[in-house]
């Protein structure tokens, strides 16, 4: 590389300078990624549903064509595959039989766990887009998961914490927190703390959050 190239490199490096504070965080990136993935899945499921519906209609039409214009009970078996479509069976089963999330494989407890956050957002959509709360950076082993977010409810700001501890790990002890055993044998703990005067944000909804999370963790 020539001297001229070296000088240009130095100039460009200097021009870029030290960046100002970033406008986005790791949590912003993972949440945006998961939103896109969810939207794609919904779109794919919708497309699959259309295909299945069209296929079912085709079966019905074909059956009617084979049997003339009669709409007697004989057409019912032809329509049966539509009602038993794999898509519908899968969606019915998804809520009841999906495997619990369970422990994390990460070396340290993930304190802004995107998968746990997705579950919390499903039951408490008010936190969608909420800022990740400040956390300590020490490595806590054990396969736990956490969500720590800054929240606001009825004009009161606060911090919401959801902690999952795997089987054999002591549940997190926080004043005012509520806990429940999870489907994977661990413990989920939910707490909310107001920053300043006022009731803790979403305090009335925490039991519902806990009830939703326990069978999914």
């Amino acid at each position, binding site marked *: 590389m020539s001297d001229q190239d070296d000088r240009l490199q130095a100039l*460009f490096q200097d021009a870029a300078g030290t960046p100002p504070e970033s406008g986005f965080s790791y949590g912003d990136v993972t949440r945006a990624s998961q939103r896109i993935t969810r939207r794609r899945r919904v779109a794919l499921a919708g497309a699959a549903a259309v295909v299945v519906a069209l296929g079912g209609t085709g079966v019905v039409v074909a059956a009617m064509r084979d049997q003339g214009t009669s709409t007697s009970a004989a057409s019912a078996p032809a329509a049966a595959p539509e009602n038993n479509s794999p898509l519908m069976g899968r969606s019915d089963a998804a809520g009841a039989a999906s495997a619990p999330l369970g422990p994390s494989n990460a070396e340290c407890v993930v304190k802004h766990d995107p998968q746990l956050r997705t579950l919390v957002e499903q039951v408490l959509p008010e936190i969608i887009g909420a800022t990740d709360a400040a956390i300590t950076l020490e490595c806590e082993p054990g396969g736990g998961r956490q969500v720590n977010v800054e929240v606001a409810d009825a004009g009161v700001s606060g911090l919401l914490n959801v902690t999952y501890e795997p089987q054999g790990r002591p549940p997190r002890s926080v004043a005012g927190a509520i806990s429940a055993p999870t489907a994977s044998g661990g413990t989920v703990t939910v707490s909310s703390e107001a920053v300043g005067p006022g009731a803790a944000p979403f305090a009335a909804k925490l039991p519902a959050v806990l009830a939703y999370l326990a069978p999914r963790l």
Partner: protein
Amino acid sequence: MDDVSEQEFAEYFRARRDTVRRTAYLLCGDWHRADDHAQASFVALHRHWSRIREPGARDAWMRRTLTRAVVDESRRPWRRERFTADPIRDECVAAAAEGVATRHVLVDGLRSVPPRQRAVLVLRYLEGLDIAGTAAALGCSEGTVKSQTSHGLAALRLALGDALDDLAEGVA
């Protein structure tokens, strides 16, 4: 994405975020848009993470995604940039004598370089890529990179006048 991959991505994000932001800034000349482009590129990388195993390939993938996004955006009518052969403002030229102002002079000058030529200059002189690496990042031939470098530097010199002595001489 499983937990191990998520942890790997988090580490990559922490290590590379500011580098990617700086590249985006020189590509578009505005920190807010730079953050938008950098975030969108990281989101895309997160979605493709499990398919890009090699660490070197991840950097190349990010460069390609980022530069294409900025160049594509500059082609949209509502974002189309104004190209000018006029030297930048006299007061800015005078300020170039001050070290602190140098970065603003260069960034302003870069904004008047056509986007694709600007991308070549940023990849070569900020990221330090050679001609082959720049060609791979932009998906073009090495000959194109050489000619774009030459044209880009000429455009930059024209925009800056004699504001920056380092650019006064021609560069092969």
